[in-house]
């Protein structure tokens, strides 16, 4: 993979670091609350598409304070709009995970004509009284792994949560993870319902909802809720996965997502 590109937006104050790989139609991937992991899922997509994976402001190495330039969800949506503009992605397919899936919906609601397809992996952004989304930011490390992953001791869980033995590396890893949750949590605290329900009708693109069968953060009831509010949506459930199917079952998830994006 070539060096990430730096694309500055927001009067030059937000330097988006964008990983780009592959060839073919443009797909942008928006990561979730724990930062960007480039792994087998994105590699698989990059075999068929040109994948653009920006890092959420504040989560790029050496730029923790960039998040202070983005005050509100409205600011953040416009930052992404400027990013798509700067990358000249007029017709783009969006894939988002969790918080990133909420942002994909927001971006698609802002400028419906720009987004051709929308794949949402365990999205947040709506709220059901009877099935509250668990606030992962209040969980201890062990509980968090057990909530995000079907197998809290599995490879994917360890890749995200294991702390390197070297003290300095360990401190940096813990800081990166916490800061990523804080930088994304800024836009959804304390309840991840910031008005998407009032805007989601604007999304015109066909949508695929991918749900980890054992998602213990965002109950399956939300799959139906999203599907009911989008014009054209269907649901795929991935067995053997929790809240992050693209990390726990990368091949299976890439298969359903790629098939959807190609149709």
């Amino acid at each position, binding site marked *: 993979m070539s060096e990430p590109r730096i694309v500055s937006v927001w009067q030059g104050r937000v330097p988006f670091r964008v990983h780009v790989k592959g060839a073919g139609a443009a797909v942008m991937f928006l990561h979730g609350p724990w930062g960007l992991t480039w792994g087998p899922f994105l590699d698989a997509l990059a075999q068929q598409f040109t994948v653009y994976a920006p890092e959420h402001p504040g989560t790029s190495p050496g730029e*923790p*304070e960039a*998040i202070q330039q983005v*005050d509100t969800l409205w600011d953040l949506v416009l930052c992404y709009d400027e990013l798509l503009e700067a990358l000249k992605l007029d017709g783009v397919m969006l894939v988002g995970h969790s918080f990133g899936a909420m942002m994909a919906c927001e971006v698609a609601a802002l400028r419906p004509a720009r987004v051709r397809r929308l794949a949402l992996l365990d999205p947040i952004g709506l709220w059901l009284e009877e099935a509250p989304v668990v606030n992962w*930011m*209040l*969980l*201890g*490390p062990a509980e968090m792994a057990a909530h995000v992953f079907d197998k809290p001791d599995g490879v994917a869980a360890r890749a995200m949560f294991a702390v390197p033995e070297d*003290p*300095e590396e*360990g*401190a*940096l890893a*813990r*800081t990166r993870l*916490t*800061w*990523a*949750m*804080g*930088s994304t*949590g*800024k836009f959804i*605290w*304390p309840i991840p319902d910031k008005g998407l329900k009032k805007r989601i009708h604007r999304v015109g693109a066909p949508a695929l909802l991918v749900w980890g069968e054992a998602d213990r953060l965002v109950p399956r009831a939300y799959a139906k809720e999203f599907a009911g509010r989008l014009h054209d949506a269907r649901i795929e459930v991935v067995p053997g996965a929790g809240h992050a199917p693209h990390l726990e079952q990368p091949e299976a998830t890439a298969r359903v997502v790629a098939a959807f994006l190609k149709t």
Partner: protein
Amino acid sequence: MKVSAFHLMPHRELPPDFERRYPSVWVTPPWGELADARRVGQYYNWTLDELLFAARAGFDGVCTNEHHQNAYGFMPSPNLMGSVLAKQTNGLDVAIVQMGMTLPTTSPPIRVAEEYGMLDCISGGRLVAGLPLGSPMDVNLAYGITPMEHRERYREAFDLVLKAWQAKEIFAWNGKYFQLGQVNLWPRPVQEPHPPVWVPGSGSISTFDFATDHNVCYCFLSYAGARAASTMMDGYWDVVDKKGLERNPYRAGFLQLVAVSETDAQAEIDYGKHVEYFYHKCLHVPPQWFAPPGNQDYRSLLAANRNPVRRAEDPKTLRYKDFVNKGYVIAGSPATVRERLVEEVIKRLHVGNLMLLIQIGSMPHELTLKNTELLAREVLPGLRDIWDDKGWENHWWPKSLRGARQPAGAAR
């Protein structure tokens, strides 16, 4: 030296298996299972009586504080308590130390300036204005403030309150978090240009900078005692030195748990179970709630992750003797307590404004009065003049009260 009596207003009768049955003392303890409103009314009245007793017995100040949704200390409005204390102590040389009304959860924050103005008027200029950031459990979990905005919101509210007290003209406040077209505070405080300001903290390096930049009294509120606090307080004094400020001990405050009885042995009999109740039940909070993601700024977060051993000790594994030996609690005979306060706390930490927690956990009313009375009569006289020979002025204390406190019980 100024010594104030501090009270949390805890639930005094939690069930013995509380910490095993419930996940947290804060945010989630079920009221219906654990509390009774009439009994809680008794707690509030005891609390007021205990603080008034301390004021009359000779303490220099009485402290209340604000917390929400918990059984650890539940004065959601410290100013309701402070108002009673201000009225009832008129005529005594006692400061009303509000530690205090939480800035980031008070909207608009000029409400803090107004209510403190009222307290300063009612007390005739005896208010110490604590301007706390608030704990993450209160501010982020109970009151829904976004962790990453907590500190910035605090700083804006702080500036607004200070300006509202002092501005001679009506002004417009066009802030990021608060917009007010015409700020014109009624009432203004008696003390000019404004009441002394104390900022409580828990060792975050960004608060050291804030306290020194704003020339306020930094108060370290710790339950792990002076030995555990020494690294933190040394860090604070380093910042004071680096900024070229004078090492005036009155620019620091410290909270210490104390339990006095006739002898060291009697102290264990009197206070042992109450101290354990406090550390085992009242501090029963999931550790990650003290720092939800974004609450610590990046620099403090990285610093904390680089020194992860600081709070490795789990108080639930400790017993009364451990708490005393390690200095979490200073307990024993008047002589023992006096000596440890002087050496371990006041001199070691270089502190001029000392706060003593006079009521600990399940400590009942009568025992709290005993503790308070022994402190005032046997301990305080030995602390009073500690910094006097150095000639430091306590700029962070109401001007009219900076002289020596009248003898116990004597009216002004």
